[in-house]
Protein backbone atom coordinates (compact mmCIF):
# COMPACT_ATOMS: atom_id res chain seq x y z
CA UNK A 1 0.00 0.00 0.00
CA UNK A 2 2.71 2.48 0.99
CA UNK A 3 4.76 1.59 -2.05
CA UNK A 4 1.70 2.11 -4.25
CA UNK A 5 1.12 5.52 -2.69
CA UNK A 6 4.75 6.53 -3.20
CA UNK A 7 4.68 5.49 -6.87
CA UNK A 8 1.50 7.45 -7.53
CA UNK A 9 2.64 10.56 -5.61
CA UNK A 10 5.95 10.57 -7.51
CA UNK A 11 4.07 10.20 -10.78
CA UNK A 12 1.75 13.12 -10.02
CA UNK A 13 4.70 15.25 -8.91
CA UNK A 14 6.45 14.74 -12.25
CA UNK A 15 3.20 15.56 -14.06
CA UNK A 16 2.92 18.87 -12.15
CA UNK A 17 6.54 19.73 -12.93
CA UNK A 18 5.84 19.19 -16.62
CA UNK A 19 2.79 21.47 -16.36
CA UNK A 20 4.85 24.17 -14.67
CA UNK A 21 7.72 23.95 -17.15
CA UNK A 22 5.28 24.07 -20.08
CA UNK A 23 3.54 27.15 -18.70
CA UNK A 24 6.88 28.98 -18.68
CA UNK A 25 7.48 27.95 -22.29
CA UNK A 26 4.01 29.10 -23.41
CA UNK A 27 3.72 32.72 -24.50
CA UNK A 28 1.17 32.74 -27.31
CA UNK A 29 -2.13 31.15 -28.28
CA UNK A 30 -0.33 29.04 -30.86
CA UNK A 31 1.99 27.72 -28.12
CA UNK A 32 -1.03 26.97 -25.96
CA UNK A 33 -3.25 25.13 -28.46
CA UNK A 34 -0.73 23.45 -30.81
CA UNK A 35 2.59 23.70 -28.94
CA UNK A 36 3.66 26.37 -31.44
CA UNK A 37 3.53 23.71 -34.20
CA UNK A 38 7.02 22.62 -33.12
CA UNK A 39 6.65 19.07 -31.76
CA UNK A 40 9.22 16.54 -32.93
CA UNK A 41 8.37 12.99 -34.07
CA UNK A 42 9.09 11.30 -30.72
CA UNK A 43 6.81 13.42 -28.56
CA UNK A 44 4.35 13.95 -31.44
CA UNK A 45 4.00 10.24 -32.18
CA UNK A 46 3.79 9.33 -28.51
CA UNK A 47 1.09 11.90 -27.74
CA UNK A 48 -0.95 10.65 -30.71
CA UNK A 49 -0.64 7.05 -29.46
CA UNK A 50 -1.38 8.00 -25.84
CA UNK A 51 -4.46 9.96 -26.88
CA UNK A 52 -5.62 6.99 -28.93
CA UNK A 53 -5.11 4.52 -26.08
CA UNK A 54 -7.75 5.12 -23.44
CA UNK A 55 -8.94 3.27 -20.37
CA UNK A 56 -11.18 1.51 -22.88
CA UNK A 57 -8.18 -0.36 -24.29
CA UNK A 58 -7.20 -1.78 -20.91
CA UNK A 59 -10.71 -2.44 -19.60
CA UNK A 60 -13.13 -2.58 -22.55
CA UNK A 61 -11.08 -4.11 -25.38
CA UNK A 62 -9.60 -6.83 -23.20
CA UNK A 63 -13.16 -7.44 -21.99
CA UNK A 64 -14.45 -7.96 -25.53
CA UNK A 65 -11.61 -10.38 -26.35
CA UNK A 66 -12.44 -12.23 -23.15
CA UNK A 67 -16.12 -12.41 -24.07
CA UNK A 68 -16.14 -13.14 -27.82
CA UNK A 69 -12.70 -14.55 -28.62
CA UNK A 70 -9.90 -13.79 -31.04
CA UNK A 71 -11.95 -12.89 -34.12
CA UNK A 72 -12.54 -9.44 -32.59
CA UNK A 73 -8.76 -8.88 -32.58
CA UNK A 74 -8.93 -8.48 -36.37
CA UNK A 75 -10.59 -5.08 -35.90
CA UNK A 76 -7.05 -3.95 -35.02
CA UNK A 77 -6.06 -4.06 -38.72
CA UNK A 78 -8.11 -0.93 -39.36
CA UNK A 79 -5.98 1.21 -37.03
CA UNK A 80 -2.58 1.17 -38.80
CA UNK A 81 -4.39 1.47 -42.15
CA UNK A 82 -6.26 4.52 -40.83
CA UNK A 83 -3.06 6.24 -39.70
CA UNK A 84 -1.40 5.44 -43.02
CA UNK A 85 -4.34 7.04 -44.84
CA UNK A 86 -4.09 10.04 -42.51
CA UNK A 87 -0.39 10.58 -43.30
CA UNK A 88 -0.47 9.76 -47.00
CA UNK A 89 -3.72 11.38 -48.11
CA UNK A 90 -5.05 13.82 -45.53
CA UNK A 91 -2.06 15.39 -43.76
CA UNK A 92 -0.13 16.75 -46.78
CA UNK A 93 -3.13 18.93 -47.72
CA UNK A 94 -4.70 19.46 -44.32
CA UNK A 95 -1.51 20.97 -42.86
CA UNK A 96 -0.92 23.36 -45.82
CA UNK A 97 -2.56 26.10 -43.74
CA UNK A 98 -1.96 25.68 -40.02
CA UNK A 99 -4.87 26.51 -37.71
CA UNK A 100 -5.24 26.36 -33.94
CA UNK A 101 -8.35 24.16 -33.92
CA UNK A 102 -10.27 21.84 -36.23
CA UNK A 103 -13.38 24.09 -36.39
CA UNK A 104 -11.05 26.91 -37.52
CA UNK A 105 -10.14 24.77 -40.53
CA UNK A 106 -13.85 24.33 -41.30
CA UNK A 107 -14.38 28.09 -41.16
CA UNK A 108 -11.50 28.82 -43.53
CA UNK A 109 -12.25 26.07 -46.05
CA UNK A 110 -15.99 26.76 -46.17
CA UNK A 111 -15.90 30.53 -45.48
CA UNK A 112 -18.53 30.06 -42.83
CA UNK A 113 -18.70 30.89 -39.16
CA UNK A 114 -21.70 28.55 -38.91
CA UNK A 115 -19.62 25.45 -39.77
CA UNK A 116 -17.11 26.47 -37.12
CA UNK A 117 -19.79 27.04 -34.50
CA UNK A 118 -21.49 23.76 -35.39
CA UNK A 119 -18.20 21.84 -35.23
CA UNK A 120 -17.39 23.37 -31.84
CA UNK A 121 -20.87 22.52 -30.57
CA UNK A 122 -20.56 18.83 -31.59
CA UNK A 123 -17.13 18.65 -29.93
CA UNK A 124 -18.37 20.24 -26.70
CA UNK A 125 -21.39 18.01 -26.22
CA UNK A 126 -19.58 14.78 -27.11
CA UNK A 127 -16.44 15.44 -25.04
CA UNK A 128 -18.09 16.75 -21.88
CA UNK A 129 -20.10 13.55 -21.49
CA UNK A 130 -17.16 11.34 -22.50
CA UNK A 131 -14.92 13.05 -19.95
CA UNK A 132 -17.63 12.42 -17.34
CA UNK A 133 -17.36 8.66 -17.89
CA UNK A 134 -13.56 8.75 -17.66
CA UNK A 135 -13.75 10.69 -14.39
CA UNK A 136 -16.00 7.99 -12.94
CA UNK A 137 -13.44 5.38 -14.02
CA UNK A 138 -10.66 7.46 -12.40
CA UNK A 139 -12.60 7.42 -9.14
CA UNK A 140 -12.86 3.63 -9.31
CA UNK A 141 -9.12 3.17 -9.83
CA UNK A 142 -8.38 5.50 -6.91
CA UNK A 143 -10.78 3.45 -4.83
CA UNK A 144 -9.03 0.17 -5.73
CA UNK A 145 -5.50 1.51 -5.28
CA UNK A 146 -5.77 3.75 -2.21
CA UNK A 147 -9.04 2.68 -0.66
CA UNK A 148 -10.27 6.29 -0.71
CA UNK A 149 -13.98 6.90 -1.40
CA UNK A 150 -14.79 7.00 -5.12
CA UNK A 151 -15.98 10.62 -4.93
CA UNK A 152 -12.70 11.80 -3.37
CA UNK A 153 -10.86 9.91 -6.08
CA UNK A 154 -12.90 11.59 -8.81
CA UNK A 155 -12.32 15.09 -7.42
CA UNK A 156 -8.56 14.58 -6.97
CA UNK A 157 -8.18 12.95 -10.39
CA UNK A 158 -10.02 15.80 -12.12
CA UNK A 159 -8.14 18.53 -10.26
CA UNK A 160 -4.76 17.06 -11.20
CA UNK A 161 -5.80 16.85 -14.85
CA UNK A 162 -7.22 20.35 -14.94
CA UNK A 163 -4.21 21.93 -13.22
CA UNK A 164 -1.54 20.68 -15.62
CA UNK A 165 -3.69 21.18 -18.70
CA UNK A 166 -4.67 24.73 -17.71
CA UNK A 167 -1.08 25.66 -16.91
CA UNK A 168 0.73 24.30 -19.92
CA UNK A 169 -1.78 23.68 -22.71
CA UNK A 170 -0.72 21.40 -25.57
CA UNK A 171 2.93 21.43 -24.51
CA UNK A 172 2.05 20.06 -21.06
CA UNK A 173 -0.41 17.57 -22.55
CA UNK A 174 2.12 16.32 -25.14
CA UNK A 175 4.94 15.85 -22.63
CA UNK A 176 2.72 14.23 -19.99
CA UNK A 177 1.31 12.00 -22.76
CA UNK A 178 4.88 10.99 -23.57
CA UNK A 179 5.49 10.06 -19.93
CA UNK A 180 2.16 8.24 -19.75
CA UNK A 181 3.00 6.33 -22.93
CA UNK A 182 6.29 5.20 -21.38
CA UNK A 183 4.38 3.94 -18.31
CA UNK A 184 1.81 2.13 -20.47
CA UNK A 185 4.56 0.51 -22.55
CA UNK A 186 6.54 -0.61 -19.50
CA UNK A 187 3.35 -1.84 -17.82
CA UNK A 188 2.35 -4.06 -20.74
CA UNK A 189 5.86 -5.21 -21.71
CA UNK A 190 6.51 -6.38 -18.14
CA UNK A 191 3.08 -7.91 -17.48
CA UNK A 192 2.67 -10.03 -20.60
CA UNK A 193 5.77 -12.27 -20.12
CA UNK A 194 4.86 -12.64 -16.43
CA UNK A 195 1.31 -13.66 -17.30
CA UNK A 196 2.55 -16.08 -19.97
CA UNK A 197 5.23 -17.58 -17.70
CA UNK A 198 2.42 -18.46 -15.30
CA UNK A 199 1.50 -21.16 -17.84
CA UNK A 200 5.07 -22.30 -18.54
CA UNK A 201 5.15 -21.07 -22.12
CA UNK A 202 2.98 -19.42 -24.75
CA UNK A 203 1.88 -22.68 -26.35
CA UNK A 204 0.56 -23.99 -23.02
CA UNK A 205 -1.44 -20.79 -22.60
CA UNK A 206 -3.00 -21.18 -26.04
CA UNK A 207 -3.75 -24.88 -25.49
CA UNK A 208 -5.34 -24.13 -22.15
CA UNK A 209 -7.55 -21.43 -23.71
CA UNK A 210 -8.66 -23.94 -26.36
CA UNK A 211 -9.59 -26.44 -23.68
CA UNK A 212 -11.47 -23.95 -21.53
CA UNK A 213 -13.15 -22.01 -24.34
CA UNK A 214 -12.97 -24.04 -27.57
CA UNK A 215 -14.68 -21.32 -29.64
CA UNK A 216 -12.02 -18.68 -28.94
CA UNK A 217 -10.09 -19.36 -32.13
CA UNK A 218 -13.10 -19.87 -34.40
CA UNK A 219 -14.47 -17.35 -36.86
CA UNK A 220 -17.98 -16.27 -36.08
CA UNK A 221 -17.49 -15.72 -32.35
CA UNK A 222 -18.26 -12.15 -33.33
CA UNK A 223 -20.69 -11.33 -36.14
CA UNK A 224 -18.89 -10.48 -39.36
CA UNK A 225 -21.08 -7.49 -40.22
CA UNK A 226 -20.41 -6.02 -36.77
CA UNK A 227 -16.68 -6.78 -37.15
CA UNK A 228 -16.49 -4.95 -40.47
CA UNK A 229 -18.61 -1.97 -39.43
CA UNK A 230 -16.67 -1.63 -36.16
CA UNK A 231 -13.47 -1.74 -38.18
CA UNK A 232 -14.89 1.14 -40.23
CA UNK A 233 -15.73 3.03 -37.02
CA UNK A 234 -12.17 2.55 -35.75
CA UNK A 235 -10.84 3.68 -39.14
CA UNK A 236 -12.93 6.85 -39.36
CA UNK A 237 -12.41 7.63 -35.67
CA UNK A 238 -8.63 7.23 -35.92
CA UNK A 239 -8.41 9.58 -38.88
CA UNK A 240 -10.95 12.28 -38.22
CA UNK A 241 -11.49 13.02 -34.55
CA UNK A 242 -10.49 16.58 -33.60
CA UNK A 243 -8.06 15.54 -30.83
CA UNK A 244 -6.06 13.56 -33.43
CA UNK A 245 -6.23 16.21 -36.17
CA UNK A 246 -4.88 19.08 -34.03
CA UNK A 247 -1.81 16.92 -33.40
CA UNK A 248 -1.04 17.18 -37.11
CA UNK A 249 -0.92 20.96 -36.64
CA UNK A 250 1.25 20.52 -33.54
CA UNK A 251 3.96 18.52 -35.35
CA UNK A 252 6.70 20.40 -37.17
CA UNK A 253 6.40 19.29 -40.80
CA UNK A 254 5.42 16.37 -43.04
CA UNK A 255 8.69 14.52 -42.46
CA UNK A 256 8.09 14.73 -38.70
CA UNK A 257 4.47 13.59 -39.16
CA UNK A 258 5.51 10.53 -41.22
CA UNK A 259 8.03 9.44 -38.58
CA UNK A 260 5.76 10.33 -35.66
CA UNK A 261 2.86 8.32 -37.05
CA UNK A 262 5.14 5.32 -37.65
CA UNK A 263 5.84 5.47 -33.90
CA UNK A 264 2.10 5.81 -33.20
CA UNK A 265 1.31 2.73 -35.31
CA UNK A 266 3.96 0.64 -33.55
CA UNK A 267 2.86 1.75 -30.07
CA UNK A 268 -0.90 1.43 -30.58
CA UNK A 269 -0.85 -1.96 -32.32
CA UNK A 270 1.83 -3.29 -29.97
CA UNK A 271 -0.07 -2.30 -26.82
CA UNK A 272 -3.34 -3.65 -28.21
CA UNK A 273 -1.76 -7.01 -29.11
CA UNK A 274 -0.25 -7.33 -25.63
CA UNK A 275 -3.59 -6.47 -24.04
CA UNK A 276 -5.27 -9.12 -26.22
CA UNK A 277 -2.81 -11.72 -24.91
CA UNK A 278 -3.61 -10.67 -21.35
CA UNK A 279 -7.25 -11.26 -22.31
CA UNK A 280 -6.34 -14.84 -23.31
CA UNK A 281 -4.56 -15.34 -19.98
CA UNK A 282 -7.69 -14.14 -18.19
CA UNK A 283 -9.78 -16.67 -20.16
CA UNK A 284 -7.52 -19.56 -19.19
CA UNK A 285 -7.33 -18.60 -15.52
CA UNK A 286 -10.83 -17.29 -14.87
CA UNK A 287 -13.20 -18.69 -17.49
CA UNK A 288 -16.40 -17.61 -15.75
CA UNK A 289 -16.10 -13.93 -14.80
CA UNK A 290 -19.46 -12.14 -14.60
CA UNK A 291 -18.21 -9.49 -17.05
CA UNK A 292 -15.20 -9.22 -19.33
CA UNK A 293 -14.47 -5.77 -17.88
CA UNK A 294 -13.04 -7.51 -14.82
CA UNK A 295 -10.41 -9.37 -16.87
CA UNK A 296 -7.64 -6.80 -16.36
CA UNK A 297 -8.14 -6.23 -12.60
CA UNK A 298 -8.23 -9.98 -11.84
CA UNK A 299 -5.12 -10.62 -13.95
CA UNK A 300 -3.31 -7.74 -12.24
CA UNK A 301 -4.21 -9.14 -8.83
CA UNK A 302 -3.75 -12.87 -9.49
CA UNK A 303 -0.73 -13.10 -11.77
CA UNK A 304 1.37 -10.00 -11.23
CA UNK A 305 3.53 -9.21 -8.18
CA UNK A 306 2.26 -6.18 -6.21
CA UNK A 307 4.90 -3.87 -7.62
CA UNK A 308 4.18 -4.79 -11.26
CA UNK A 309 0.45 -4.78 -10.53
CA UNK A 310 0.81 -1.19 -9.34
CA UNK A 311 2.69 -0.24 -12.51
CA UNK A 312 -0.14 -1.83 -14.49
CA UNK A 313 -2.76 0.21 -12.59
CA UNK A 314 -0.59 3.30 -13.14
CA UNK A 315 -0.65 2.37 -16.83
CA UNK A 316 -4.46 2.23 -16.80
CA UNK A 317 -4.55 5.61 -15.04
CA UNK A 318 -2.08 6.96 -17.60
CA UNK A 319 -4.21 5.71 -20.48
CA UNK A 320 -7.19 7.50 -18.99
CA UNK A 321 -5.39 10.75 -18.19
CA UNK A 322 -3.64 11.00 -21.55
CA UNK A 323 -6.97 10.72 -23.35
CA UNK A 324 -8.91 13.06 -21.08
CA UNK A 325 -6.26 15.81 -21.09
CA UNK A 326 -6.34 15.84 -24.91
CA UNK A 327 -10.13 15.98 -24.91
CA UNK A 328 -10.14 18.81 -22.35
CA UNK A 329 -7.77 20.73 -24.60
CA UNK A 330 -9.97 20.17 -27.65
CA UNK A 331 -13.20 21.02 -25.80
CA UNK A 332 -11.57 24.04 -24.15
CA UNK A 333 -10.44 25.34 -27.52
CA UNK A 334 -13.92 24.77 -28.96
CA UNK A 335 -15.41 26.86 -26.16
CA UNK A 336 -12.92 29.72 -25.85
CA UNK A 337 -11.35 29.88 -29.32
CA UNK A 338 -14.11 28.77 -31.69
CA UNK A 339 -17.17 30.05 -29.85
CA UNK A 340 -16.14 32.89 -27.53
CA UNK A 341 -13.23 34.52 -29.42
CA UNK A 342 -14.66 33.89 -32.85
CA UNK A 343 -18.35 34.58 -32.41
CA UNK A 344 -18.71 36.77 -29.31
CA UNK A 345 -15.60 38.77 -28.44
CA UNK A 346 -13.59 39.00 -31.62
CA UNK A 347 -10.86 41.58 -30.95
CA UNK A 348 -9.15 40.66 -27.70
CA UNK A 349 -5.44 41.10 -27.00
CA UNK A 350 -3.10 38.09 -27.03
CA UNK A 351 -2.82 38.16 -23.24
CA UNK A 352 -6.58 38.21 -22.81
CA UNK A 353 -7.04 35.41 -25.35
CA UNK A 354 -4.62 33.22 -23.38
CA UNK A 355 -6.58 33.96 -20.21
CA UNK A 356 -9.86 33.09 -21.91
CA UNK A 357 -8.24 29.87 -23.23
CA UNK A 358 -7.33 28.80 -19.70
CA UNK A 359 -10.77 29.70 -18.35
CA UNK A 360 -12.26 27.54 -21.12
CA UNK A 361 -10.28 24.49 -19.91
CA UNK A 362 -11.39 25.09 -16.30
CA UNK A 363 -15.03 25.20 -17.44
CA UNK A 364 -14.98 22.05 -19.61
CA UNK A 365 -13.08 20.23 -16.85
CA UNK A 366 -15.30 21.19 -13.92
CA UNK A 367 -18.70 20.95 -15.62
CA UNK A 368 -18.51 17.14 -16.03
CA UNK A 369 -17.34 16.79 -12.43
CA UNK A 370 -20.15 18.98 -11.10
CA UNK A 371 -22.68 17.06 -13.20
CA UNK A 372 -21.52 13.78 -11.66
CA UNK A 373 -21.44 15.18 -8.10
CA UNK A 374 -24.89 16.67 -8.64
CA UNK A 375 -26.16 13.25 -9.73
CA UNK A 376 -27.00 14.42 -13.25
CA UNK A 377 -26.69 12.20 -16.30
CA UNK A 378 -25.32 9.27 -14.40
CA UNK A 379 -25.37 5.72 -15.62
CA UNK A 380 -27.19 4.88 -18.81
CA UNK A 381 -27.01 8.17 -20.65
CA UNK A 382 -23.25 8.40 -20.11
CA UNK A 383 -22.68 4.82 -21.20
CA UNK A 384 -24.79 5.50 -24.25
CA UNK A 385 -22.74 8.50 -25.33
CA UNK A 386 -19.40 6.85 -24.58
CA UNK A 387 -20.27 4.07 -26.98
CA UNK A 388 -21.37 6.66 -29.50
CA UNK A 389 -18.51 9.11 -28.96
CA UNK A 390 -16.16 7.94 -31.70
CA UNK A 391 -19.07 7.23 -34.04
CA UNK A 392 -20.49 10.74 -33.60
CA UNK A 393 -17.11 12.43 -34.03
CA UNK A 394 -16.30 10.27 -37.05
CA UNK A 395 -19.70 10.75 -38.70
CA UNK A 396 -19.59 14.50 -38.00
CA UNK A 397 -16.05 15.36 -39.09
CA UNK A 398 -14.59 12.77 -41.47
CA UNK A 399 -16.49 13.84 -44.57
CA UNK A 400 -16.20 17.65 -44.33
CA UNK A 401 -12.50 17.41 -43.41
CA UNK A 402 -11.32 14.76 -45.88
CA UNK A 403 -13.80 15.86 -48.55
CA UNK A 404 -12.78 19.49 -48.06
CA UNK A 405 -9.15 18.86 -49.01
CA UNK A 406 -9.82 16.29 -51.75
CA UNK A 407 -12.82 17.77 -53.59
CA UNK A 408 -12.68 21.34 -54.93
CA UNK A 409 -16.42 21.50 -55.48
CA UNK A 410 -17.29 20.94 -51.78
CA UNK A 411 -19.04 23.94 -50.26
CA UNK A 412 -20.50 25.34 -47.07
CA UNK A 413 -24.04 23.99 -47.51
CA UNK A 414 -22.70 20.49 -48.21
CA UNK A 415 -20.45 20.60 -45.14
CA UNK A 416 -23.24 21.73 -42.81
CA UNK A 417 -25.72 19.17 -44.18
CA UNK A 418 -23.14 16.39 -43.88
CA UNK A 419 -22.23 17.24 -40.26
CA UNK A 420 -25.83 17.50 -39.05
CA UNK A 421 -27.00 14.50 -41.09
CA UNK A 422 -24.05 12.30 -40.06
CA UNK A 423 -24.52 12.95 -36.35
CA UNK A 424 -28.32 12.60 -36.46
CA UNK A 425 -28.35 9.37 -38.46
CA UNK A 426 -25.69 7.86 -36.17
CA UNK A 427 -27.75 8.70 -33.08
CA UNK A 428 -31.05 7.55 -34.60
CA UNK A 429 -29.54 4.25 -35.81
CA UNK A 430 -28.17 3.61 -32.33
CA UNK A 431 -31.69 3.90 -30.89
CA UNK A 432 -33.87 2.32 -33.60
CA UNK A 433 -31.53 0.58 -36.06
CA UNK A 434 -30.27 -2.98 -36.50
CA UNK A 435 -27.81 -3.79 -33.69
CA UNK A 436 -25.80 -6.05 -36.04
CA UNK A 437 -24.58 -2.94 -37.85
CA UNK A 438 -22.49 -0.45 -35.90
CA UNK A 439 -24.22 2.98 -36.21
CA UNK A 440 -21.24 4.69 -37.79
CA UNK A 441 -21.85 2.95 -41.14
CA UNK A 442 -25.30 4.47 -41.81
CA UNK A 443 -24.09 7.76 -40.27
CA UNK A 444 -21.07 7.82 -42.55
CA UNK A 445 -23.10 6.96 -45.67
CA UNK A 446 -25.60 9.74 -44.83
CA UNK A 447 -22.80 12.27 -44.30
CA UNK A 448 -21.13 11.44 -47.63
CA UNK A 449 -24.40 11.47 -49.59
CA UNK A 450 -25.54 14.78 -48.10
CA UNK A 451 -22.08 16.27 -48.62
CA UNK A 452 -22.03 15.42 -52.31
CA UNK A 453 -25.68 16.03 -53.18
CA UNK A 454 -26.10 19.31 -51.28
CA UNK A 455 -22.74 20.65 -52.55
CA UNK A 456 -23.74 19.92 -56.15
CA UNK A 457 -27.18 21.50 -55.71
CA UNK A 458 -25.70 24.77 -54.43
CA UNK A 459 -23.21 27.18 -56.08
CA UNK A 460 -19.52 26.18 -56.32
CA UNK A 461 -17.15 27.75 -53.78
CA UNK A 462 -14.72 30.52 -54.74
CA UNK A 463 -11.35 29.29 -55.99
CA UNK A 464 -9.51 31.13 -53.20
CA UNK A 465 -11.15 28.85 -50.63
CA UNK A 466 -9.95 25.47 -51.90
CA UNK A 467 -6.77 26.60 -53.67
CA UNK A 468 -4.37 26.64 -50.68
CA UNK A 469 -5.03 22.93 -50.02
CA UNK A 470 -4.40 21.88 -53.61
CA UNK A 471 -1.08 23.64 -54.16
CA UNK A 472 1.92 21.36 -54.66
Amino acid sequence: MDMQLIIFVLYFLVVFLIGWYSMRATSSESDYWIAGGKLGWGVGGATMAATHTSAGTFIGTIGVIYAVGWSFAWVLLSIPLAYWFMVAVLAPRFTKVKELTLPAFLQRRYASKATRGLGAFIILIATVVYVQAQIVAGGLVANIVFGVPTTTGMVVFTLILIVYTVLGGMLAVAYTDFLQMVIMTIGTIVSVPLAVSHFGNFENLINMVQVVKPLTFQWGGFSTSLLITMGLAFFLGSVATPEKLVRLYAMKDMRTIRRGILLTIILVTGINLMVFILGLAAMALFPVLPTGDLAMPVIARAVLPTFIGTIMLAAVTSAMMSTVDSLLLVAGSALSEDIYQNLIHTNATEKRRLLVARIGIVIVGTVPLLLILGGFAKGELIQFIVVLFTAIMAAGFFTPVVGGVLWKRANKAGAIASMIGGVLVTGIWKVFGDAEIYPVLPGFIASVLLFVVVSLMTPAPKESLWKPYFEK
Partner: protein
Amino acid sequence: MPGFIFWGLFLFLGLILVGYIGWMLWIEKGK
Protein backbone atom coordinates in the same frame (compact mmCIF):
# COMPACT_ATOMS: atom_id res chain seq x y z
CA MET B 1 -1.89 -24.22 -31.90
CA PRO B 2 -4.62 -22.24 -33.69
CA GLY B 3 -4.06 -21.54 -37.35
CA PHE B 4 -4.73 -18.61 -39.60
CA ILE B 5 -7.22 -16.86 -37.33
CA PHE B 6 -4.37 -16.27 -34.86
CA TRP B 7 -1.18 -15.94 -36.92
CA GLY B 8 -2.89 -14.33 -39.90
CA LEU B 9 -3.48 -11.17 -37.88
CA PHE B 10 0.22 -10.90 -37.04
CA LEU B 11 1.09 -11.55 -40.68
CA PHE B 12 -1.16 -8.74 -41.94
CA LEU B 13 -0.02 -6.31 -39.24
CA GLY B 14 3.59 -7.09 -40.18
CA LEU B 15 2.85 -6.51 -43.87
CA ILE B 16 1.21 -3.15 -43.14
CA LEU B 17 4.21 -2.09 -41.04
CA VAL B 18 6.70 -3.09 -43.73
CA GLY B 19 4.51 -1.39 -46.34
CA TYR B 20 4.39 1.85 -44.36
CA ILE B 21 8.15 1.96 -43.80
CA GLY B 22 8.78 1.17 -47.46
CA TRP B 23 6.36 3.88 -48.57
CA MET B 24 7.96 6.40 -46.19
CA LEU B 25 11.46 5.72 -47.48
CA TRP B 26 10.24 5.82 -51.08
CA ILE B 27 8.50 9.21 -50.58
CA GLU B 28 11.54 10.75 -48.95
CA LYS B 29 13.97 9.39 -51.50
CA GLY B 30 11.89 10.99 -54.27
CA LYS B 31 12.17 14.46 -52.74
